């Protein structure tokens, strides 16, 4: 399966298993979603469980919070992460805090799915990576898969979770892994080991990182599309990197990070999101606090620049092989 099919399969499996699961969002019903993630679900489960919504993100999330209070398990879709901001009040002030402020009387077991990330010439409003906004909010979990297998298993785990989950889907790798070389033909997931996806139910637990590549020279912390760019870059440089695909940013698998950095003594953090106050800053602080005496070089970050996401200059902006390669060389020199 490609990542879209894996996500579609996760939704199908959960709707089959749990009558409380409902899917809602702009164009998700009859049409099956602008990325096809919800294709066929309305036909199979009916309009009471899969329905199109008006174009109002604050309404979509607000209504989903109310449905959660009733006892349903909504899976709302925000068409692009760039358009999640109108729903921030409902997510930050309501969904994230409902359990806390009501001391558990009411919960918001939502899974907010949203395509995110760049590398598709999406320009300013179809490319953003706003995960740092949500990792800063207490009460929500933030999950970002990088493979079809994880996308399905993590999405099932997110839907079953009783806390609100922001589930960001890297749209650059919906149809195939991306190595960062934008000028080579696109690849499909066919033949990729992580594209072997079981048809039925399985979970990938939230809060657990995946060792995408074991190694000794340095630790690279990344997630989403960047996992593939990093894998390819380290292979090209023939560097024995240990690559951790974090998968869940909150709660974070701190043990896996600590174990790896203490082993390698070096750490690089890579994300597409802008640099200042991005999630990389939190990772850097945690590694510095916990692995200080094991570090043999300053921790480096390769991130998007502190600018809006540009259209024509996308490949200068994107943390691709050149920038990652230079950072690795610097860390290994230090």
């Amino acid at each position, binding site marked *: 399966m490609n990542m879209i099919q894996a996500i579609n399969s996760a939704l199908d499996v959960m709707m089959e298993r749990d009558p409380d699961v409902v899917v809602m969002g702009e164009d998700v019903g009859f049409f099956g979603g602008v990325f096809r993630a919800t294709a066929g679900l309305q036909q199979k489960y009916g309009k009471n*469980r899969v329905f199109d919504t008006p174009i109002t993100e604050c309404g979509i999330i*607000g*209504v989903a*919070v*109310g449905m959660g209070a*009733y*006892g349903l398990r909504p899976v709302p879709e925000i068409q692009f992460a760039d358009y999640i901001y109108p729903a921030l009040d409902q997510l930050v002030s309501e969904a994230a805090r409902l359990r806390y*402020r009501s*001391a558990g009387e009411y*919960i918001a077991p939502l899974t907010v799915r949203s395509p995110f990330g760049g590398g598709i010439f999406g320009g300013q409003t179809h490319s953003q990576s706003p995960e740092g906004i949500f990792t800063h909010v207490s009460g929500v979990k933030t999950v970002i898969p990088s493979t079809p297998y994880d996308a399905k298993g993590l999405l099932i785990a997110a839907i079953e979770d009783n806390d609100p989950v922001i589930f960001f889907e890297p749209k650059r790798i919906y149809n195939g892994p991306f190595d960062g070389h934008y000028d080579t033909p696109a690849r499909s997931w066919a033949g990729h080991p992580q594209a072997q996806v079981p048809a039925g139910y399985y979970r990938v637990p939230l809060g657990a990182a995946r060792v995408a590549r074991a190694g000794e020279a340095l630790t690279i912390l990344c997630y989403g599309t960047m996992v593939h760019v990093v894998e390819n870059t380290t292979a090209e440089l023939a560097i024995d990197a240990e690559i951790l695909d974090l998968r869940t940013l909150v709660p974070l698998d701190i043990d896996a990070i600590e174990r790896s950095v203490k082993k390698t003594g070096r750490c690089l953090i890579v994300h597409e999101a802008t640099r200042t106050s991005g999630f990389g800053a939190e990772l850097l602080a945690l590694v510095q606090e916990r692995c200080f005496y094991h570090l043999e070089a300053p921790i480096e970050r390769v991130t998007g620049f502190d600018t809006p996401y540009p259209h024509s200059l996308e490949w200068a902006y994107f943390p691709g092989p050149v920038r990652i390669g230079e950072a690795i060389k610097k860390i290994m020199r230090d």
Partner: protein
Amino acid sequence: MSDRPVADAGKDQPGRNLPPLRLHVPEPRFRPGDHADFSDFAIPPAGAMPRPDEAAAAESFRELAYGLVRVLDEDGQAVGPWDPKLPPETLLKMLRSMALTRAFDARMFRAQRQGKTSFYMKSTGEEAVSIGAALALARDDMCFPSYRQQGILIARDWPLIDMMNQIYSNKGDRLKGRQLPIMYSAREASFFSISGNLTTQYPQAVGWAMASAARGDSRIAATWCGEGSTAEGDFHSACTFASVYRAPVIMNIVNNQWAISSFSGFAGAEATTFAARAIGYGIAGLRVDGNDALAVYAATRWAADRARANGGPTLIEHFTYRVEGHSTSDDPIAYRSADEASHWPLGDPIARLKQHCIRLGIWDEERHAAMDKELAETVRDAARAAEKNGILGHGLHHPMETMFQDVFEEMPWHLKEQQQKMLDEWKAAGL
């Protein structure tokens, strides 16, 4: 393409025979020092509004959205097609709940002034809005209130001591001292957790109602916001969703004329009524005398019947007046005429219902005075019992480590670490 010569931009527009544009900034009629005079306020007569069938098309509500449904006339008689013809026990329960709410407000306001809690908000003058509605709904209909509908809990016989424990943030507080006073949550009373963020409860109520409908349930939802809060985007999205899915929801706008210091003109009241907003959404809209408990009851009952029959949502504007300051942190003397409340032409909701009950021969002044005395004692006794659980700042709160609970269902490592660090620091400091 502008026809204005570039050279003229920013000048006094020579050669243009047009008056200068003017920005209209609304201004309330009376400011501090002014004598409030509502003698020109044409009180629409009680009983004059038609009562359409519950299945009537939303587009036919123009008259009701711009008019004012009133049942109790100046003599305390119930008149017209909206008279809900309630039995005496319901009328007296309504009167008692309103009086209890006022007594509760008085006591808790005083408790804040005595330093027993940080904050309080009264609902004086608006008791009919929440109690009339609560009594017209089924007990398991879900309410999504704002912060000024404490009357719903009181009408649903929620224990006063439980409300007070919340206000005192003490060890008996079901919300563990996490919430600002009056932000109640009472699931067993079908009363949704109150948020400080305005109007967020509106789309949530619609979503709850949609879930109920999708499940083939028979319960409906009701929500409340102030007229000031209708300006929030959530109001618009809630109305759109409610209309699109014909959600079984009652959306109440409590138009008490004031949003803290801003008069209703800043929410658009100079141009139209709030009930009239329903028309554009294709929702039934009723405008009701919010100081007339029978009108509130009748409108709510009508809307509930409509919703239960899959007739869709209703928007009800309750026209009332915020008699007191916005909160214990507010002094209305600074922005409005001091005598506005006493001159408010629609009177006091408790006095009007009392007059009606006396007129029916089911009540009298002696019984009313005795009830007021009894309710004051009830509230006093509840307050004394609640204070035994602690008052704010006197240490009888939930244990510190509970601060970290319920952020998530299970506490993740980073919260466990922060919790332990806090406890260690206090211990190391010898506290």
